[in-house]
């Protein structure tokens, strides 16, 4: 099993100044000292707060979206030769203790990707609109997958060295969650799931994705899966 010091926790963040410091400290407090925050051209002090809390910070010069930030994290991980990355959200919805569960599942299954699923053991308080949104996204994504996944849109995932080396994300927005799963299957990476908890704070509820964004994400993904020429994939 991977030791916590061998693992990097990667947190893509956009305008999360009010909470990012606490999120970074909590991750460190759960026994994971290596934290990388990808500040995606935030307009607030996200980068500064993350640094103050002890994270390594990479900043995009302009905002490019969650998928773009995730891919930058992957590219950097590859350069640094990291063997294991766990990605979590920056808005404080995820519980850093759950990282241990993903690491355990990885050790048991030897999977290349472990998805932290919010729906295997659902937390109370997930708003019905978000459940619906995620259901629709799951159906859409699973149509393009060989297997069925309970939470395709999760921002909580473990990536093994093989996944870090092989994945190339092209979608800038939230569509990257689905893209990653479809591509992982294509590349013969093994995917497992582990239950995680989420907390919907007022803070995160106010800035979560809306329907327009959901539709944009779906169009992006469909477009990519159906029409992208192979050299762009």
């Amino acid at each position, binding site marked *: 099993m991977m030791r916590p010091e061998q693992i990097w926790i990667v947190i893509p963040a956009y305008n999360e100044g009010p909470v990012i410091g606490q999120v970074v400290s909590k991750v460190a407090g759960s026994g994971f000292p290596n934290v990388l925050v990808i500040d995606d051209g935030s307009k607030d002090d996200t980068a500064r707060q993350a640094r103050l809390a002890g994270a390594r910070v*990479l900043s995009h*010069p302009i905002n*490019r979206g969650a998928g773009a930030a995730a*891919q*930058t994290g992957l*590219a*950097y991980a590859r*350069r640094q030769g990291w063997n294991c990355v766990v990605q979590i959200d920056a808005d404080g919805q995820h519980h850093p203790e759950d990282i241990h569960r993903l690491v355990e599942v990885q050790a048991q299954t030897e999977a290349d990707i472990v998805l932290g699923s919010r729906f295997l053991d659902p937390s109370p308080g997930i708003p019905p609109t978000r459940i619906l949104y995620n259901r629709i996204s799951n159906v859409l994504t699973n149509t393009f997958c060989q297997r069925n996944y309970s939470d395709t849109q999760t921002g909580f995932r473990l990536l093994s060295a093989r996944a870090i080396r092989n994945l190339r994300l*092209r979608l800038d927005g939230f569509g990257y969650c689905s893209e990653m799963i479809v591509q992982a299957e294509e590349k013969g990476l093994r995917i497992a799931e582990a239950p995680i908890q989420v907390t919907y704070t007022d803070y995160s509820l106010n800035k979560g994705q809306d329907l327009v964004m959901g539709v944009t994400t779906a169009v992006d993904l469909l477009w990519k899966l159906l029409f992208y020429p*192979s050299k762009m994939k």
Partner: protein
Amino acid sequence: MKLEVYQIIVPLASLGFVFNLVRRFLKSKASWQEAALGAAFWLSVGIFALFPDAISKAIADFFGIKSNINAIIFFCLGLIFFFQYKLFFMLKKNQMAITELARKITLQQAEKEDLQS
């Protein structure tokens, strides 16, 4: 049949575009989807220019539209959709290029910082 000037220029231009697409495809600068779609589009433009009356009448008959003015409007709609597709494609390509640039800048900066510490 008497040929108007445009009935010579348009088909020739269309052929030029088709050859260009084939060349781009052979140099793998265009995907087969893009090449096939583009070629089909330009070929139909060329043929339409050669036989405008017969084709718009045929289209009108096929869809049960009364006059061939409607058929032309119908055809223009198709044209707009085609350019919509092209534009969306170009937009996506540009977005990708910008993201790659942003990433490059970010990783260069990171490398500098890593060397300093």
